[in-house]
């Protein structure tokens, strides 16, 4: 099912005096139950696109439909129940336990004082269990490794119970095993809970192996398809290949000439 639809979207930054358009005419969609990865060279506008979809910055033109409704018609509160976010940079928090942080994911549902009901606690425990961080529950955030911390933020997004989760380079600062583990975890979440998961990344080979669909952002256009489809059509080769680097379409592998 299509959960997010982009129509003739243009993104960028607007100030009082000038408009800086980063990308335009973006047409694409996200489907539930699929892990969609956004790749492309640095500076092409991946972050801007992600920020626009997370409602952190307004779109310039065109339309983004989230569950059939225009993104600009959502209030902060309504939106917080639709799209959960995980960012690259870890929040600098001291003296907060893993469980407390995951609990903050319930904020859109709790009342004025943020008091947790039994139902909230069950959801928090389920999220912690689903991500497999029960053993970290009572640890302080500042004592976790980057990989563990990223899992906690994903658990927060699960507790938020949004049908859509957007992650900005969630694997950026992780060591290689943690990168794979995080991606597998996200893939499993898509399938288990039929969520729409969308993330930006530079871990190309890993992405090609695990993603259901790829959005490849290039200058002036965005190519959408399964890794196989984009390999067949030659778009991935055009993105990857240069002097000394080739792309093996059948194996989906980057090959460096020696």
């Amino acid at each position: 099912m299509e959960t997010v639809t982009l129509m003739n979207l243009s993104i960028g930054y607007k100030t009082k005096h000038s408009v800086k358009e980063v990308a335009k005419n973006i047409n694409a969609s996200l489907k539930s139950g699929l892990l969609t990865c956004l790749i492309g060279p640095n500076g092409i506008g991946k972050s801007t696109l992600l920020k626009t979809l997370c409602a952190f910055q307004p779109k310039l033109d065109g339309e983004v439909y989230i569950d059939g409704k225009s993104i600009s018609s959502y209030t902060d509160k309504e939106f917080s129940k639709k799209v959960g976010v995980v960012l690259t940079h870890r929040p600098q928090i001291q003296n907060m336990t893993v469980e407390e942080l995951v609990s903050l994911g319930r904020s859109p549902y709790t009342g004025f004082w943020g008091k947790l009901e039994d139902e909230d606690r069950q959801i928090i425990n389920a999220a912690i269990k689903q991500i497999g961080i029960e053993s970290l529950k009572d640890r302080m955030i500042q004592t976790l490794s980057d990989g563990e911390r990223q899992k906690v933020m994903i658990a927060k997004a699960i507790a938020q119970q949004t049908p859509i989760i957007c992650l900005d380079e969630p694997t950026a600062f992780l060591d290689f095993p943690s990168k794979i583990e995080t991606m597998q975890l996200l893939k499993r979440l898509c399938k288990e809970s039929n969520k729409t998961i969308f993330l930006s990344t530079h871990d190309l080979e890993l992405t090609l192996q695990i993603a259901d669909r790829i959005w490849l952002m290039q200058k002036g256009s965005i190519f959408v398809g399964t890794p196989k489809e984009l390999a067949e059509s030659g778009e991935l080769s055009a993105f990857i290949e240069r002097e000394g680097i080739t792309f093996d379409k059948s194996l989906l592998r980057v090959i460096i000439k020696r």
Partner: protein
Amino acid sequence: MFKRGGKLIILVVLILILLILNLLLGSVKIPVNDTLSILFGDRSNEIFSNIILKSRLPQALVAIVAGAGLAVSGLQMQTIFRNPLAGPSVLGISNGASLGVAMVVLMSSSLAGVSLSRMGYVGDAAISVAAIIGSLAVMALIVYIARKVKGNVTLLIIGVMIGYLVTAIVGVLKFFSSEEDVKAYVVWGLGSFARVSGDQMLLFVTMMILLLPLSFLLVKSLNLMLLGDDYAKNLGLNVSRARTLVILNSGVLVAIVTAYCGPIMFIGLAVPHLCRALFKSSDHKVLVPATMLAGAALALLCSLVARMPGFEGALPVNSVTALIGAPIIASVIFRRRKENDGE
């Protein structure tokens, strides 16, 4: 170790003990029995009851509400700016109070021909009003800017710059004032819990008792803001409105305390650190009441030290808060670094 509730109760007990010590100790020795009977309505010894009821008790009450207000205000500033060195003075709000007071104290003689420092009670009221107007004016400016700029760091820098600007204006005013007025201004700047008395004291304490509970209304917003603006917004918080409300709450508390007690340093900066270390928590449901209680206790302690026999009430509160506050901050930060390195 005690649970969080237990620690809060210990703080309450500590406040009570310090309150009693504040009533008992001072340059004039008043026996415990007499102190108790005076508190329960015995007025037979006029001198003793005057000292207790018109000096020691008001001073202790002022210290309690002022300490609580400054500490919770510091907590709020540190949270919204995610900066451990933020305190009530960081946005130039207390500098605004200084400017208001400087205007009134330093310019009164040249403009109106009366030196405020000689006007006693009326002069005190004028100083309080000037301080409130000055700090609220700076706060209004900050809130206006807060709605325009997005980044917290930008806002912080603007606040610090406003502080410098105001200090410079005060410097110019001082240059053109009489020595007597400058001295009055400097004395105000040293801070004191003893400056307000009588009706003014009652007005101050009542205002603070009404304003302090408002901090509890911001607990959920403050907890979300710990995660940073983006995460907070994604969890449904209207970040710009929440930030404005926190600055307003925190700013009004500082404005009023500064108006009546002068710019008291360090309590707002030190107490939140102390409480985070003590309660091992960053949950504002715990920290808001904890900072209020610990702030009140620390202010009582400082007031007590400042009045110890020998000092005769002459020791400025700011010197004591700094002497006690600076080592606390240093040791807390040092210990936290060690803990983090050890991991």
